[in-house]
């Protein structure tokens, strides 16, 4: 009895010590309020109007200042943000959204249904995701102060996901601002409901966002892009630093706390740095060569299939990733691993066959007479230029004649809208959170994928609400993709970021960077 008593006391004592130690260590990592986090990025955003442009830098910045009805969780599925809940009618044609109450805009006004209707109406006319959704919407109206009703023309699979995607998103503006600026005009007043508000914008120098003290956070834990958001830092200062070597140097010296969009050659240096470390950002882009299917040589499907059969993707990816296996992934799925709902593991796809005989046979069957194929790329994104160059070499080995045209990004973006000016161009496909968001499968995006089967499956995907059936459709679409070859899918490329060790709480798993829930250690 005495021994068990002693044992028990010993156990209690050690538990107390352990708990004490645990408390001490967690106290050391407790979030600290205050400070300015300085983030170095590529350049200036063309606008801070979230409805207006798909530019990724606008996406990153506006998601600190504005919020939408929904957001994405850590599995990239829609979860409520400004909405409290929603119900769907039995026939699937009426969505009723209940809004959270007491949410304030940065100007003190409360967010209500009239702000939501005005903002989403504007978004539905300008944003690519808004327009795709509103093509199915017959009416959006405010039922009462905190209730919004959306009536659909047909059953839709994309309501919540469209309201949740962070890019070119359905940000809720005050009604006055949404009505003041017509959809095709950039809004130049910035009032949102987000944890930070815009304090100052000095173009090409910095953009300052400060904590919004009346921010009403959700009660859940942070979850992906959504859940609870706390602004620990007093200010986020976004500093455009166009020269990438300088961006890295400034993180090393401490002039910046974070730098995004870095070149892969800084990786080794950052790994050795005592005060900063590298972050591999996934997903980043999958590399793609887009064919002009409206006119010209590449309207010939066999020719496209020949290209697909010829290329050996792994050495290209390895080269583009600077030889570092941490920075690329071989995958045939059209949605990357991180978008788990739509990731496919199909076998037997003609992806990365690197079969020269098959390629030569297809070339012959296509009737190709060695005419030059205009392949447009740019050096402004080094990885685009690299994979274009390597592709040209591989293709010329099997009998293609590639005319590589190197232009600047502004020219490429302009020219790719004109079907007379090119046959193929390079770009990267970023995260698409829904099958209907894969732009290269649509008829209006450069390249003009008008194949009947692909278009039919895309429209079914927009309407089919059963998740299992949707996945089956998506797998069918993937097989169609590899047979009809609207574009060539290479591998996944990852990006590089740098962060000082004093920055804590940063979520490394999201595609784009966020600085709420982040604090600075002394």
């Amino acid at each position: 009895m005495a021994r068990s008593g002693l044992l028990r006391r010993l156990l209690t004592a050690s538990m107390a010590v352990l708990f004490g130690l645990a408390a001490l260590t967690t106290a050391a990592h407790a979030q600290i309020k205050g400070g300015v986090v300085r983030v170095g990025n590529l350049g200036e955003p063309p606008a801070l109007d979230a409805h207006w442009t798909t530019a990724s830098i606008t996406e990153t910045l506006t998601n600190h200042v504005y919020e939408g009805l929904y957001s994405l969780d850590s599995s990239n599925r829609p979860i409520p943000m400004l909405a409290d809940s929603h119900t769907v009618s039995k026939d699937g044609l009426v969505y009723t959204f209940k809004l959270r109450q007491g949410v304030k805009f940065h100007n003190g006004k409360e967010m209500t249904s009239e702000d939501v209707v005005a903002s989403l109406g504007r978004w539905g006319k300008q944003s690519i995701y808004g327009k795709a959704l509103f093509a199915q919407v017959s009416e959006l109206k405010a039922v009462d102060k905190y209730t919004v009703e959306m009536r659909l023309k047909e059953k839709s699979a994309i309501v919540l996901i469209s309201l949740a995607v962070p890019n070119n998103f359905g940000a809720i503006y005050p009604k006055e601002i949404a009505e003041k600026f017509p959809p095709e005009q950039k809004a130049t007043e910035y009032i949102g409901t987000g944890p930070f508000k815009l304090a100052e914008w000095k173009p090409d120098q910095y953009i300052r966002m400060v904590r919004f003290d009346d921010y009403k956070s959700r009660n859940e834990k942070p979850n992906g892009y959504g859940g609870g958001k706390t602004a620990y830092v007093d200010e986020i200062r976004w500093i455009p630093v166009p020269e990438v070597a300088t961006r890295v140097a400034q993180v090393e010296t401490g002039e910046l706390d974070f730098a995004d969009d870095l070149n892969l050659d800084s990786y080794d240096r950052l790994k050795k740095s005592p005060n900063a470390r590298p972050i591999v950002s996934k997903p980043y882009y999958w590399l793609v060569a887009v064919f002009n299917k409206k006119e010209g040589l590449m309207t010939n499907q066999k020719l496209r299939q020949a290209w697909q059969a010829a290329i050996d993707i792994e050495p290209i990816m390895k080269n583009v990733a600077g030889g570092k296996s941490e920075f690329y992934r071989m995958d045939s799925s059209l949605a990357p691993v991180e978008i788990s709902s739509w990731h496919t593991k199909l076998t037997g796809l003609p992806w990365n066959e690197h079969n020269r005989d098959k390629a030569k046979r297809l070339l012959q069957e296509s009737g190709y007479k060695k005419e030059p194929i205009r392949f447009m790329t740019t050096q402004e994104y080094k990885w685009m230029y690299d994979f274009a160059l390597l592709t040209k070499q591989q293709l010329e080995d099997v009998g293609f004649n590639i005319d590589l045209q190197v232009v600047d990004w502004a020219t490429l973006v302009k020219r790719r809208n004109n079907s007379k000016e090119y046959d193929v161009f390079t770009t990267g496909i970023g995260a698409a959170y829904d099958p209907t968001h894969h732009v290269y499968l649509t008829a209006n995006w450069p390249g003009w994928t008008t194949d009947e089967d692909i278009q039919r499956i895309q429209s079914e995907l927009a309407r089919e609400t059963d998740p299992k059936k949707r996945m089956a459709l998506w797998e069918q679409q993937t097989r169609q993709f590899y047979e009809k070859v609207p574009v060539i899918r290479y591998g996944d490329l990852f990006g590089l970021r740098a962060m000082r060790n004093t920055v804590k709480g940063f979520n490394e798993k999201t595609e784009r960077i966020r600085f709420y829930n982040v604090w600075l250690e002394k």
Partner: protein
Amino acid sequence: MGPYLVRRVLALLPVMAVVVTVVFLLIHLIPGDPVSVMLGPDATTTQIEKTRQALGLDRPLYDQLLGFYARILRGDLGQSYFLDRPVTRALWERAEPTLVLTGLALLVAVIIGVPSGTIAAAYRGSLWDRGLMFMSLLGVCIPGFWLSLNLIYLFAVRLGWLPAAGYVSIFSDPAAGLRYMVLPALSLGFNQSALIARIARSCMLEVLQQDYIRTARAKGLSNRVVIYVHAFRNALVPVVTVIGITTAVLIGGAVVTEIVFNIPGLGRLIISAILRRDYPVVQGVVLVTAATYVLINLTVDLLYAVIDPRIRYE
């Protein structure tokens, strides 16, 4: 002098008109347009057309050009597509960093260049001469970009003595402002010092051959007096020309330095404007740079008369 001055200033106008027209045509004729860049790569054709109309970009080129002239004569350089402010304001905000950088770089270039050239000439053929001219050769050959990055790596990252990049106004905080300017001014100045050194050396050598120099030496004057009192001023005229050209080159050529050191000056402004096809800003910067260049040339010409009393203009 008076009528000469007036004529020179009037001659500015045709020069500027030509420069501005050429740049207008160039920037509008190269492929790519601001709207595609602004709206993002996934914009539809209808959206792009609507925004182009709103910006007046769908009007015929000659119409846009005439509209541009009309605005310039009113002193209105237009509105930047990206910066949401008048071009004049954008230029005004960015002029200070470029002027400060150019001024300091010029100072560095002159402080390195003129004494190097003078000493090299005075001790011609010696180790001094060869050493200094080798340094000036390095100044010409070393790419400014490479030099800038290495200066950052050494002094900012490894030693931590100076900041890697950025800008603080000298007028708000002189000490910090100067710290940020040391590396960029050094890099830019070193490149430009080379030409100044070489020209100073050649001019000095030529002057030292002159009769009056031999007379001065015959009179028994020390080498130092001969060089600094008698030879120096006479060698100055071509050197002043080079310094003038260098100033103009610096204003335009500070672009690379501004990008590497992230200085928000006119050089960075014009590069981002070109890449984004921000037409009004490109036109505005070129107009202002051309005007500055011409004015500097005029100032240099007038300075000759001050330095060399023999020079007179009709």
